[in-house]
């Protein structure tokens, strides 16, 4: 009996040593980690050898080459993480391609320890997109991004103009719009258009409440501008983690975010992208009309220009500021909804991710000028998207921030600002 047990143990040991050394070129880290991604690259029933497959996710990276049977296996450290599996198209034989957009797929483990990932191959020649076409596509995307930034930036700029506050909590007003839409459409199952409308109204209410509860009392107390800015930083921190408290750290999708792209020549846009640009343009025109043609709009610009003079000429400065906060809140909320579709996804820190870009846009255009913020946003949006033609995409925000610093060096008052604004 004992001998038998011992014999079994020995066999087990030999087996396990054998298992560890059996890593071929088609397997990597499978003996090291418990979770395995695997696949079989075939075309028309024939296995394809020497195709490079790479996996990234959660800071982990590995690559492997398929064997004579077209098989590959990659061990990964974690089953909680989502991994991106990439098939390197350049290593496929001539005449075989991956179906468009499928050379990269996301893989998640469910309850199992292994997951198979397959790529759909097809016959055909790889079409390389010309630089000009890529440029055009990025340009339109950048315009879309710039327009949604502009919605947030105009609100931020108006608030700065009328109250002098650099509002860091604007990021959380952006997030609020998206989270409210998400809650209304998913938890209360309202139709998405109604959810968005109510979310925008709620964002306006949030703007009003913040002004009434925090900023107006502080203004009355005569707190300086720098302390106000630090208060807004504290508020931003508190609100952001409150969102995380209730919504968790994950990213969720709004209904309809996965709609397919429609091609217009080289430009690929989803119906959502088109709607987003359309809405942004209409809203921006409406805001311009409000600022240029209506009494309250003119009063707003007057307060922005010189609060004491405006007050002396009978303008209700507090009333104007209240309207600016409501307007700024609603615009930020709308921009949050559009940003949720553009990213895509709703998450607790989504507003904070673009806060610096919004600040960059406002500063570029000239602090406190509404139309400067619009121009600044479009420049920033275009710059972020176009810079991915040359820069790796994880550096795309760097370009826009560098431009911000360079503009401050050359024209500190911003594009539309006046000299007197610099200290």
């Amino acid at each position, binding site marked *: 009996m004992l001998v038998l047990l011992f014999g079994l143990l020995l066999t087990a040991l030999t087996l396990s040593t054998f298992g560890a050394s059996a890593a071929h070129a088609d397997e990597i880290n499978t003996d090291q980690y418990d979770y395995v991604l695997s696949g079989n690259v075939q075309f028309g029933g024939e296995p394809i050898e020497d195709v490079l497959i790479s996996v990234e996710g959660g*800071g982990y990276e590995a690559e492997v080459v398929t064997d004579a049977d077209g098989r590959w296996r990659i061990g990964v450290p974690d089953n909680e993480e989502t991994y991106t599996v990439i098939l390197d198209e350049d290593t496929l034989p001539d005449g075989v391609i991956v179906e468009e957009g499928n050379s990269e797929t996301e893989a998640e483990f469910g309850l199992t320890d292994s997951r198979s990932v397959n790529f759909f191959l097809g016959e055909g020649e790889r079409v390389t997109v010309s630089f000009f076409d890529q440029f055009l596509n990025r340009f339109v995307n950048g315009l879309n991004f710039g327009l949604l930034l502009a919605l947030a930036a105009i609100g931020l700029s108006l608030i700065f103009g009328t109250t002098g506050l*650099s509002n860091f909590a604007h990021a959380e007003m952006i997030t609020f719009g998206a989270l409210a839409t998400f809650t209304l459409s998913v938890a209360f199952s309202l139709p998405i258009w109604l959810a968005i409308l109510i979310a925008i109204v709620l964002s306006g209410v949030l703007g009003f409440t913040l002004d009434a509860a925090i900023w107006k009392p*502080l203004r009355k*107390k005569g*707190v*300086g*501008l*720098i*302390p106000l*800015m*630090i*208060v807004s*930083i*504290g*508020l*931003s*921190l*508190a*609100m*952001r*983690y*409150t969102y*995380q*408290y209730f919504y*968790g750290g994950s990213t969720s999708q709004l209904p309809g975010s996965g709609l397919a792209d429609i091609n217009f020549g080289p430009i690929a846009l989803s119906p959502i992208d088109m709607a987003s640009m359309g809405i942004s343009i209409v809203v921006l025109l409406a805001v311009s009309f409000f600022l240029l043609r209506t009494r309250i709009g003119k009063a707003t610009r007057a307060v922005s220009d010189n609060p004491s003079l405006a007050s002396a000429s009978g303008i209700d400065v507090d009333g104007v500021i209240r309207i600016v906060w409501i307007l700024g809140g609603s615009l930020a909320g709308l921009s949050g909804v559009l940003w949720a579709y553009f990213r895509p996804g709703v998450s607790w820190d989504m507003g904070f991710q673009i806060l*610096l870009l919004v*600040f*960059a846009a406002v*500063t570029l255009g000239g*602090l406190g000028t509404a139309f400067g913020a619009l121009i600044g946003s479009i420049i920033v949006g275009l710059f972020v998207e176009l810079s991915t033609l040359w820069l*790796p995409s*994880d*550096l795309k*925000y*760097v370009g826009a*921030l*560098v431009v*911000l*610093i*360079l503009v*401050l*060096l050359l024209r*500190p008052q911003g594009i539309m600002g006046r000299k007197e*604004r*610099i*200290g």
Partner: protein
Amino acid sequence: MIDWGAIFSNAAVELISPTTAAYALAALGLAIHFGYTGLLNFGQAGFMALGAYGFAISTLSFGFPVWASVLVGVGASVVFALILGIPTLRLRADYLAIVTIAAAEIVRLLFTTNTFDALTGSANGLSGYKGGFADLNPIPEGTYGFGPFEYNAYDWWLRIVAWTIVVLACLFTWQIMRSPWGRVVKAIREDEDAVRALGKNVYSYKMQSLILGGVYGTIAGMIFILPRAVVPSNYQTSLTFFVYAILLLGGAATILGPVIGSMIFWVLLSFFSGFIARAVEAGWLPFMSSVQAGQLRFILVGVAIMLIVIYRPQGIFGNKKELAFVK
């Protein structure tokens, strides 16, 4: 039942932890910028990242000895301060805030990107650079101390070095703020134009202050990574905000404020999160999960920043006459 002993001893440990020392030093740097000179530097996280990466990269990739690695980090932060200062020190205070915050993000993104993976380790960060520092340790192997303060030789060495640096930095700052240089810098905070009228080169003084405080931040960044690994996501804007919370808590224009502020901040934070985590485990707070309990402390930091600025802008140790805020 709640283990109060563990909660208190975990909180007491933070009193002399190297992290507390690192935040104290970073906050002291900000005190020079913000409290004494009136510069709104929101890029302290960038200075800390440069210190951490400057030290780690020169040790790991170039095999520099400890002193040279420290010099590389300090050199990098001086260059960073010059790049930041040249465009912005002539501008109004809020421009400096936006530019420094942007520059710190640029630094973080450059350390995070896959493009420089070979040097920076991208999102994984770096580790394994502590050998040189540990070799300098004169303390013989073994465990020393009493109660909750029981550490091995490396941990004591780290704590002694960290707090010696903090004490030296405090003494230096105290002396320099009593000197003619310090008086000019404080005068710049109060009224820049008046100082200019006296024939002082305001721009140059501001630049010197930016560099000095930045170097404090850099050295703080090095202390910060000695008990842990370098991870790029540690250097987000929230890091700067936390350092600001510490500075405002202690008092912006004080020497001891940042140090005591850091101690209070970390002890309270540890006490609070220890208490909430155990209360959740014990079922006292049925509506809260343990993950949510972890987030509660960030909400609290945010609220604390707001309350301090509104109700006690001079901090615990500050003097109301010495205005903590410009304008």
